[in-house]
């Protein structure tokens, strides 16, 4: 299958999350071809799972003081703390016909090329059901999916060299864990690609493109100005608003 690769474009977290809605809908409407998009961010943020309670997940005082954007995704799953340059996020927008209808099987197959890429760099990565990519030392990242009309959105965030201390200040998983033992345990659950390979972040993305190329016919592309404009409008209307982000 031909797969367009978009490896450019830096956007705020609300616009990134709005793009997920816009691009999934465009794929479903037949207005966009199957696409793999790598994300570039401009600020630290929290991407909250669609069904998570804001106050359960986020250290609200710290987030208010630091101005970290907290944006509710269109996909379920757990909260991720993200920073520009220290995580790798990508999205696949695919027709349903190209994706296993069994959800567990589809997570495994849509992350398989990433696992291959990490292994090619010497990182002992594996898919861990339902939706994690794991290393023996902890979780490297997680995926989340949305099926909408004829489209499947599959997006994954991996830690390259995430600031785990900042993550623990931002998310409530760190808040109540006052003992050193508990913090050590939380840190242990996060594994980082950069701790297990000499490859820099761009080289990891190159390896991922190579691995994707073993499965798909890749062609380079860019997002249309029209799609980005639609995402900016949708961000202003929904993903930048408390009505959406703090609905739960």
């Amino acid at each position, binding site marked *: 299958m031909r797969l367009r690769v978009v490896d450019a474009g830096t956007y705020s977290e609300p616009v990134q999350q709005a793009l997920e809605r816009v691009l999934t809908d465009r794929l479903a409407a037949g207005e966009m071809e199957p696409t793999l998009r790598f994300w570039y961010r401009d600020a630290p943020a929290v991407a909250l*799972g*669609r*069904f*998570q*309670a804001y106050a*359960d997940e986020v250290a609200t005082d710290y987030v208010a003081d630091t101005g970290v954007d907290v944006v509710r995704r*269109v*996909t*379920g*799953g*757990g*909260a991720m703390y993200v920073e520009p340059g220290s995580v790798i996020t990508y999205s696949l927008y695919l027709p349903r016909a190209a994706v296993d209808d069994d*959800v567990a099987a589809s997570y495994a197959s849509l992350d398989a090329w990433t696992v291959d890429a990490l292994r090619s760099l010497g990182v002992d990565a594996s898919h861990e*059901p*339902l*939706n994690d990519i794991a290393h023996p030392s902890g979780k490297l990242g997680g995926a*989340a*999916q*949305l*099926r*909408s009309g004829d489209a499947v959105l599959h997006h994954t965030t991996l830690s390259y060299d995430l600031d785990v201390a900042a993550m623990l200040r931002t998310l409530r998983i760190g808040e109540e864990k006052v003992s050193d033992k508990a913090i050590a345990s939380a840190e242990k659950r996060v594994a980082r690609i950069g701790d297990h390979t000499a490859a820099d972040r761009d080289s990891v993305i190159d390896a991922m493109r190579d691995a994707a190329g073993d499965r798909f016919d890749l062609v380079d592309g860019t997002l249309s100005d029209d799609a980005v404009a639609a995402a900016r409008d949708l961000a202003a209307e929904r993903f930048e608003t408390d009505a959406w982000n703090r609905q*739960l």
Partner: protein
Amino acid sequence: MPATGTVKVPDGKLIEVTLEATDRIEDVRLTGDFFLEPPSARADLEAAIAGHPTDVDRETLVEAIDGVDARLIGFDADHLAAATLEAIP
């Protein structure tokens, strides 16, 4: 006072049900790190739990939850029923 019941699915997701339990279950809110398709079915699941008497049994709740046209991913009706019962004081 709303009360909360939490179920951690083994190797899976966290399901949290918050509700008011006087004579009947009311004001149900389902949250957690689960997946659900379509996402709008969250309101249908909450509605399926609401209205039952507070001494409802697990089988009745499971049946009501199973009646919702939705795909529960990372949890099942039994986990949701268990979280509901845990929230009832």
